[in-house]
């Protein structure tokens, strides 16, 4: 098959169909997205409403198999749809965990009963899901989690604390990693659970962040009971299952779904009369060059996935490149805004979106494996550098020094 950057005739037909559906049900987005950070609950409701529309019209889960209620399309079609959808003023953020991470994990590791119970409502947008992985003492070293689950008859009893839980306060379900066998080495004794967030003993405390929004939460688990049927992928097999989720998360974060574009920043710079300045122009050009690289890396990933190949190091590179692009471009944005950059809130230029994105960069840089973790992985997989000698891989978790 010869190289074809951009749509094949069949892709173009699909794109037209997507665009036509979208323009019937949504309005085109203006240059800068409407800001939703003051009303996160309203945002969640808007996400649910839009997901229902997608589901009712056969546009939900484009690459999900038909047996799970999806459209049965290709991953390439899913990307084309996402690309078109991003040009419209619709809300999708609160389903990033469920559709982007939990869905693929459930499909790969779930039982038929779990598929039947969870996938349809997920796709319809009835349920918001959250991820209960990180803990105060298990961040980059995720396998070091200390939340314990102990079997009591046919129920697991869970105690511990989770943190950085996006949309936790609005979630119906969570995916939870807990330690079920402390005598095993740290990667081996972990189990992956599906947790009903309405269970007794689940306490969600929102964390107000630098952006002023409480997107993240702390989640305290005290004697929370989880039916044994809600184990996903087998007891003590949680690390393998979690890797499916993390792979999907990296692909999602790196895959854009971006709430801003270089074009929008150029438009703002023009509006402010800043593009006469050659230095500003050069910085905008560098941002454009970085954005293009991310587009092409995405094309490589799409090509690999449409050929049924496992993506190469591009996925890690993309996540890192995207995080750096975000950081550097927001610095440029502050220069473009000039004195306005000192202001905050809805009444400043572009409704304060650039300031908001500046402060949001940390979620991108740290979430889904920090920049430095990605660099380590790239060194190992891209260059074959030896793994860092690790002293704790084979010791029982119980014996490890805890942070």
């Amino acid at each position, binding site marked *: 098959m010869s190289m074809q950057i951009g749509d094949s005739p069949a892709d173009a037909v699909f794109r037209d169909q997507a665009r036509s559906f979208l323009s019937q049900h949504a309005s085109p987005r203006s240059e800068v997205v409407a800001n939703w950070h003051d009303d996160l609950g309203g945002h969640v409701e808007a996400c649910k409403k839009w997901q229902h529309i997608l589901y009712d019209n056969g546009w939900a889960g484009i690459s999900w198999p038909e047996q799970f209620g999806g459209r049965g399309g290709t991953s390439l079609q899913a990307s084309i749809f996402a690309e078109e959808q991003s040009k419209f003023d619709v809300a999708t953020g609160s389903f990033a965990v469920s559709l982007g991470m939990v869905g693929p994990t459930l499909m790969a590791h779930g039982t038929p009963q779990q598929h039947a119970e969870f996938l349809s409502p997920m796709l319809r947008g009835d349920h918001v899901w959250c991820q209960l992985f990180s803990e105060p003492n298990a961040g980059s070293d995720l396998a070091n989690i200390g939340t314990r689950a102990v079997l009591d008859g046919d129920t697991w009893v869970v105690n511990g604390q989770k943190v950085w839980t996006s949309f936790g306060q609005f979630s119906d379900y969570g995916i939870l990693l807990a330690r079920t066998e402390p005598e095993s080495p740290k990667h081996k004794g972990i189990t992956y659970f599906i947790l009903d967030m309405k269970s007794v003993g689940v306490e969600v405390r929102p964390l107000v962040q630098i952006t002023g929004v409480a997107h993240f939460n702390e989640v305290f688990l005290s004697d929370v009971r989880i039916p044994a049927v809600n184990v996903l992928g087998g007891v003590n097999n949680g690390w393998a299952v979690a890797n499916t989720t993390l792979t999907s998360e990296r692909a999602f974060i790196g895959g854009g779904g971006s709430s801003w574009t270089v074009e929008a920043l150029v438009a703002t710079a023009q509006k402010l009369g800043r593009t006469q300045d050659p230095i500003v*122009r050069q910085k905008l*050009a560098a941002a454009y060059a970085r954005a293009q690289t991310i587009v092409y890396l995405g094309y490589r990933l799409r090509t*690999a996935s449409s050929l049924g190949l496992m993506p190469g190091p591009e996925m890690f590179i993309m996540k890192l490149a995207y995080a750096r692009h975000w950081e550097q471009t927001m610095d440029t944005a502050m220069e473009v805004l000039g004195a306005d950059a000192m202001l905050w809130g809805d009444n400043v230029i572009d409704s304060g979106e650039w300031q908001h994105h500046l402060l949001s960069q940390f979620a991108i840089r740290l979430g889904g494996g920090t920049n430095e973790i990605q660099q380590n992985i790239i060194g190992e997989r891209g260059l074959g550098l030896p793994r860092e000698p690790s002293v704790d891989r084979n010791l029982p978790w119980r014996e490890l020094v805890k942070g």
Partner: protein
Amino acid sequence: MNFDLSDEQQVLGGLAQQIFGDLSTIERITELQTRDGFDATLWSELAKAGLLGLCVAEEHGGLAMHMVELSLVLEQQGRYIAQVPLWSSSIAAMTVAEFASQELQNQVLPGVCAGTTILSTALANFGANDSMNPSVEAIDVIETKEGGIRLIGSKPAVPYAQHAHYVVVSAKRANGSIVLALVDTDARGVTITPVEGSDRQPQANMEIDVVVPTSHVISGLTSDGREALRWMHEHSLVALCAIQLGVAQGSIAITAEHVKTRHQFGKPLSAQQAVAVRAADAYITTEAMRVTTLNAAWQLAEGFDARQDVLVAMYWATEGGHSVVLAGQHLHGGVGADISYPVHRFFLWGIQISTQLGGASQHLARLGKLIASK
């Protein structure tokens, strides 16, 4: 959407890798340094494999391929720091094929494919080094029956000019219009002065005061040849991006090997995170160079407006390429300072390409004008 190489393209890349890998060994390159640096043996092997006429029509003995395929071959040349005038001769031949008369093509291209005629391009200029603003002056000759165009001026650092039979020279009339002409290096009025370049490959300054016959004017005889110059310039930039991609890969490969095998404090250097992270960053940059180069080459091959694509690729090749070869040199420590060890060759060629047809800031400035001027 298919942003990957076809089977044929992968085979071609493999063939190029084999030829360059087998012949352009470190021993061979070291030996060439005792002479002027041109690897004539490799050149004739490339001719036998058809790689000198890769993008030339079959009627002239070429393989009728396009910019993506040329990029794959140039990448392997960079990977093995092979010392042949492949990019300059190929782009000159493509320019002749695209814009020159059938007679001139018939006269020049078969020899290019056979490896007996070497071409070069004189795109760089003294001063601001703006390829689109040539420093050679063009004057239409009207006093003789034969006519022609008189070219007066000088061109710096023309790749392999001392080995070339013809050089595509860009020049500018007083009214600003552009002329592209094929200048015979043996012609009276052409002086070739070899200069030592930072990449240690043959190059020469050209002093030109010569009347080019109308038959050898490639573009701009009766009109403005600016579009032809832009075409040649964009293809040249992508050719350099492709070489730089190979140079960066070569630098990283030898560097990864070094940091894995060199031990300090009782463990490999790569076990130090600061070392591993710097190597990983070089790898990331190289992948950015790969995707942007491949995209630009494809856009050119398809005949699309690729002005922005070329500048994006060139930004990565200059700014990014420079950082990669610098990391490679640095991570070798004192070993890299010894010229009997090959890593410095990647560094030297890398920094040469980073400035050859303009540096990163020049490309960014152009790109900035394209995307943001209003």
